[in-house]
């Protein structure tokens, strides 16, 4: 019996999406081909695009399919920077995913960009006053602002409407990979310029994401080739994954109320089984399924090993390429010291999480935490 509490990393594909993908895999036809087979596949892709656009409150032509959320973030950060050659300043929040932070740092190192990270409060919400001051003093230099819709480690929801308001004419991008289909999210209502979503966080397949980019806006591409996707993302359209992505949207089994009440049960249980544990970001609005917990006097990688030994899958938040656990930059930005930032676990609940899962996880936590504390005291 394996208890999966890492839905923010990836969540199971829903059956209708698997079925849709299989049907599409059995079809022939490159969506860019002009013959009947090609047109038939193209029709599937365009219907999927319309479904996703409708779910997001954008126009179908604003949906650009990519190979991942990471790719969409890279395309947005680099593309928006390159599209404004007279502006050199990039503004991102201090708690962005590495898929936003790293391309921004890359532009600093390779193209001489200047980067300013907007700090967050102890609850993990960005400091809008800081951003407003920055826009007032240096607005004319800012090429883009990128603030995630909700944080992947803590689930803390960011005030994107306020960010857009402060930004005025400056393009705002938002990485909405964790928020999409979890909380209400409308590209047009928020007034965003660009947005990132990904299929495998919502019950769709791995390897397909989308950049939502304002209609008719042209920017330099990362990939050049056949000119697909407004020449911003060349490459044969991945029809089976795109179709399954749309099916994951229409057939979603995610119920925010249920997930939220399970998380509440989990967190009130934590207070009983690990009284010294601290739940991060509780003072702010959070996504329904994410619970980030600091267990003082432990190291997260030992906690994870021990939880895994009890067949509970959870996450330490951030891992570098070598798989070594590093202090979470998100928790550091929220004011944790390095020790606190390496003693936290993320549990993330999803559409398939049950009360039994929560009860079992809670039942093993006391022993796991006690052992991790013993190992850490050496």
């Amino acid at each position, binding site marked *: 019996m394996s208890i999966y509490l890492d839905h923010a990393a990836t969540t199971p594909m829903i059956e209708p999406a698997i079925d849709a993908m299989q049907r599409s895999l059995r079809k022939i036809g490159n969506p860019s081909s002009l013959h009947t087979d090609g047109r038939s596949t193209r029709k599937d892709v365009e219907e999927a695009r319309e479904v996703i656009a409708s779910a997001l409150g954008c126009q179908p032509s604003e949906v650009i399919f990519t190979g991942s959320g990471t790719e969409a973030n890279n395309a947005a950060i680099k593309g928006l920077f390159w599209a404004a050659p007279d502006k050199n300043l990039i503004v991102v929040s201090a708690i962005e995913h590495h898929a936003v932070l790293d391309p921004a740092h890359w532009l600093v190192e390779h193209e001489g960009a200047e980067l300013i990270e907007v700090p967050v409060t102890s609850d993990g919400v960005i400091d809008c006053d800081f951003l407003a001051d920055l826009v007032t003093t240096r607005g004319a230099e800012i090429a883009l602002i990128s603030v995630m819709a909700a944080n992947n480690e803590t689930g803390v929801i960011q005030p994107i409407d306020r960010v857009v308001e402060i930004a005025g004419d400056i393009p705002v991008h938002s990485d909405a990979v964790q928020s999409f289909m979890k909380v209400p999210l409308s590209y047009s209502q928020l007034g965003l310029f660009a947005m990132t979503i990904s299929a495998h966080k919502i019950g769709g397949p791995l390897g397909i994401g989308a950049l939502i980019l304002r209609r008719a806006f042209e920017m330099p591409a990362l990939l050049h080739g056949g000119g697909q996707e407004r020449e911003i993302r060349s490459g044969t359209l991945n029809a089976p994954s795109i179709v399954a992505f749309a099916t994951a949207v229409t057939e979603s089994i995610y119920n925010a109320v249920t997930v939220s009440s399970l998380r509440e049960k989990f967190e009130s249980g934590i207070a009983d089984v690990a009284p010294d544990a601290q739940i991060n970001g509780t003072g702010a609005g959070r996504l329904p399924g994410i619970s980030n917990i600091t267990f003082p006097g432990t190291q997260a*990688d030992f906690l994870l090993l*021990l939880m*895994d030994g009890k067949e509970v899958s959870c996450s330490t938040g951030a891992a570098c390429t*070598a*798989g070594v656990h590093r202090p979470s930059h998100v928790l550091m930005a929220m004011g944790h010291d390095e020790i606190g930032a390496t003693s936290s676990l993320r549990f993330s609940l999803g559409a398939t999480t049950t009360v039994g899962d929560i009860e079992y996880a809670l039942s093993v936590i006391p022993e796991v935490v006690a052992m991790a504390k013993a190992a850490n005291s050496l």
Partner: protein
Amino acid sequence: MKLIAAMSGGVDSAVAAARAVEEGHDVIGVHLALSANPQKYRSGARGCCTIEDSHDARRAADVIGIPFYIWDMADEFHAGVVENFMSEYKAGRTPNPCLRCNEKIKFAAVLDRAKAMGFDGVITGHYARTRDTDAGKTLHRAVDPLKDQSYVLAVLNRDQISGALFPLGDTEKVDIRLEAERRGLAVAQKPDSHDICFVPSGDNAGWLRERLGSESGPIVDQDGTQIGEHKGAYTYTIGQRKGLGITVPTADGSPRFVLKIEPVTNTVVVGAREELAVSSMKGERAIWCGPEIAPGDHRGFVQVRAHGQALPCTYRFDGTNLVADLDSPLLGLATGQAMVIYDGDRVVGSATICETAS
């Protein structure tokens, strides 16, 4: 037993883990990340814990069918091994970092954490054997004399040895590679690692110069006459003959050897080969790998290098230091090296050489 297999990404630790699983133990694989800034790729036989090595360890764990984790021991390794390596050299001694790593990391930091988390011990791919005796678990040489690693394990005390499993000690290396092939482990033909893992270039002197500076100082002969200049005393080794850069020849044309390194005055003393002869050594920080030795003289063997010869000797523990008198003298012995005492193939214990006498 519930065991943690330390998996470097090499063939030995992979086969060791596989054997433990086959014996029915409940094993998880752990790769120790010892460098804060690991290199991506391994270059030849040098370096360790590159990202490629951790990948190899992960794939071996997959093939064996055990869970796999990476433990970040970079801070512990730096504080316990790398800094010690530098400070020992700075003090004019010649340390062996592999012993230090076994003592402070693999069978301390890792073993202690393993025990705290409910595991019974640690498996490594070292070539050595243990035996359960009435006096507890004892440490012995491996059957393959060319691969025997009991020397670098002689810093483990009885508690540490009781928590250690060395499944490879009864097999020759060549057979381990064949066994790895048979088990479908991709690392079967991966080259052995040599040298010091945190000096990937293999240039110890250059590595030390970069970190400790290269303050030049005199090279003197035994009567104190300066005959040359060195670039950092700690980059020399006792017994070293090459690379001294001395242009003044000896009277009889015989070569000179490094006899002594004096860190306080930053002086390197050189002299004739005979002056290197050592017939007695004294070691501090004695560790017993089995029963403590009885008072008085004992006959046995002492080994002073990882792949050195076992030299017949009479040894005793004087209450503070371990002393070994050699039957016939040895040429070139530096303080800081480990002296390991053997009774036949059993490792009696070890100490860090602090004094030698001719």
